[in-house]
């Protein structure tokens, strides 16, 4: 295969990248020569991959994630690895061990997270498209805050092989881009079956976005416009939905009662899975070396105290607690029942409607250092986590602004109907442009 290179030495005032590849190699294919940025929790052979954590500083993966192999085969130029909240744990990208990313729309604000570097790189025009990962909103949140498009695919459509695991049952790799057409093209490259991921589904994505939404029924959940949602943001999103009605869609009010406890169920589940997944980081096989003369508990505690940031340690503690004897029934078991209830709420609603629409985030992008209390940060994820708990596809598309900052319209669809949420986003994008 012919290999070519492009130089990639951009100005990066917003600190989107942790690593850049200069020159970046590319081949022939549908993405020949297209600059693509990759979130730093996705393994890239020969390119440092840190998850924005000191504990993986210097780690060079010996293999490519499945999606990275697909990108290379499609001819894409992988130009670098993007900043993120450490291990994906955060909503602002301020939890990176290597400093925050700034929002290109207003550098005094956060880009959202955890895929903040990927979103900022696209928004600043440094790359046409990027890969992120979404455990509880980590693609859609930064897409909304930076004014670009981001898709969290249905669980199982994109292989997680080579994605450094944080919460396996919730997370998916997905595309970010300036336009719906671009994320659709990237989704076409990365979706499909992979035998190395036991949750992978044989559902490739071969779709060209179509803007015809005549007769489409859109559910409008009251919870997405209620308590905790900035009224200005809600107004912008209501106007966007009215635009979809002008395109021939009809709206139906609906309710997701399980939203009452969905966020708690999400945090119990993701911290529990994290406490198990992150047990592997002890400095033995990669990372900063433990003192091999000390007893192993002491040696590992030293490595992990120095190597993990505060939020990662907090989540490992919470998850260890939620799974511990005496508390498992109260937290983890209950969270799994809650998760089923969320799924059932969606199934019931999707009986009557084709998609569900609402704001992606309850507010516009926060100021840097505005959110310091962990719980208030967690609450910002309330509108994005339901799609992860249910496994359904969800897209965020820019739909206007509030206080000069972008607002995202979120469209959720039935399981494996990623094509439909893409079409609705495309219809909106075509109607306003």
């Amino acid at each position, binding site marked *: 295969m012919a290999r070519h290179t492009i130089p990639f030495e951009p100005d990066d005032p917003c600190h989107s990248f942790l690593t850049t590849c200069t020159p970046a190699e590319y081949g022939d294919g549908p993405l020949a020569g297209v600059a693509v940025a990759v979130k730093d929790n996705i393994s890239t052979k020969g390119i440092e991959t840190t998850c924005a954590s000191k504990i993986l500083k210097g*780690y060079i993966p010996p293999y490519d994630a499945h999606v990275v192999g697909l990108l290379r085969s499609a001819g894409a130029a992988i130009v670098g690895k993007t900043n993120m909240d450490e291990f994906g744990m955060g909503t602002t990208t301020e939890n990176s061990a290597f400093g925050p990313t700034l929002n290109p729309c207003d550098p005094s604000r956060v880009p959202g997270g955890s895929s903040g570097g990927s979103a900022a790189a696209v928004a600043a025009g440094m790359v046409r498209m990027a890969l992120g990962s979404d455990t509880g909103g980590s693609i859609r949140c930064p897409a909304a805050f930076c004014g670009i498009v981001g898709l969290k695919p249905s669980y199982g459509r994109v292989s997680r092989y080579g994605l450094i695991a944080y919460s396996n049952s919730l997370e998916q790799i997905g595309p970010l881009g300036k336009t719906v057409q671009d994320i659709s093209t990237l989704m076409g490259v990365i979706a499909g079956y992979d035998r190395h991921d036991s*949750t992978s589904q044989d559902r490739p994505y071969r779709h060209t976005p179509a803007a015809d939404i005549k007769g489409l029924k859109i559910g409008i959940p009251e919870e997405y416009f209620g308590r905790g949602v900035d009224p200005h943001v809600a107004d912008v999103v209501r106007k966007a939905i009215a635009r979809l009605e002008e395109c021939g869609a009809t709206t139906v009010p609906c309710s997701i009662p399980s939203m009452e*406890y969905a966020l708690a169920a999400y945090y119990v589940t993701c911290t529990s899975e994290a406490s198990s997944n992150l047990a592997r980081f002890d400095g033995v096989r990669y990372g900063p070396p433990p003192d091999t003369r*000390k007893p*192993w*508990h002491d040696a590992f*505690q030293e490595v992990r105290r120095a190597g993990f940031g505060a939020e990662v340690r907090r989540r490992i503690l*919470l998850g*260890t607690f939620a799974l511990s004897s005496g508390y498992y029934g109260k937290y983890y078991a209950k969270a799994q029942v809650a998760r089923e209830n969320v799924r059932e709420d969606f199934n019931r609603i999707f009986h009557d409607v084709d998609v569900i629409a609402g704001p992606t985030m309850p507010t516009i992008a926060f100021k840097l250092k505005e959110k310091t209390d*962990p719980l208030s940060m967690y609450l910002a994820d309330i509108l994005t986590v339901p799609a992860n708990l249910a496994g359904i596809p969800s897209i965020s598309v820019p739909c206007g602004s509030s206080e000069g900052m972008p607002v995202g319209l979120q469209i959720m669809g039935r399981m494996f109907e990623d094509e439909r949420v893409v079409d609705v986003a495309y219809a909106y994008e075509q109607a306003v442009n």
Partner: protein
Amino acid sequence: MVTEHEVQHIAKLADIGINTEELGTFTAQFNAILDYFDTLDTVKGEGTGTSELFNVLREDEVEISLPQEDVLRNAPATEDGFIKAPRVM
């Protein structure tokens, strides 16, 4: 209410390492978050289990894998093709 002593115990179970200075902050944040998690007490139902899930297995056959040299490349300390770890006894 979770006490500082319990947080310390959990930190030990998780091999996370915790300083005395940060113990108070962690415990306070822990309690605020657990208070919020109490909303799970209102969850109704037992859960029916998800029927569409099934196990994915494969034959336990030896396949081509990464060369040992590549696997060891990221390890901070190796000896005779093995990874060096802290003592367990």
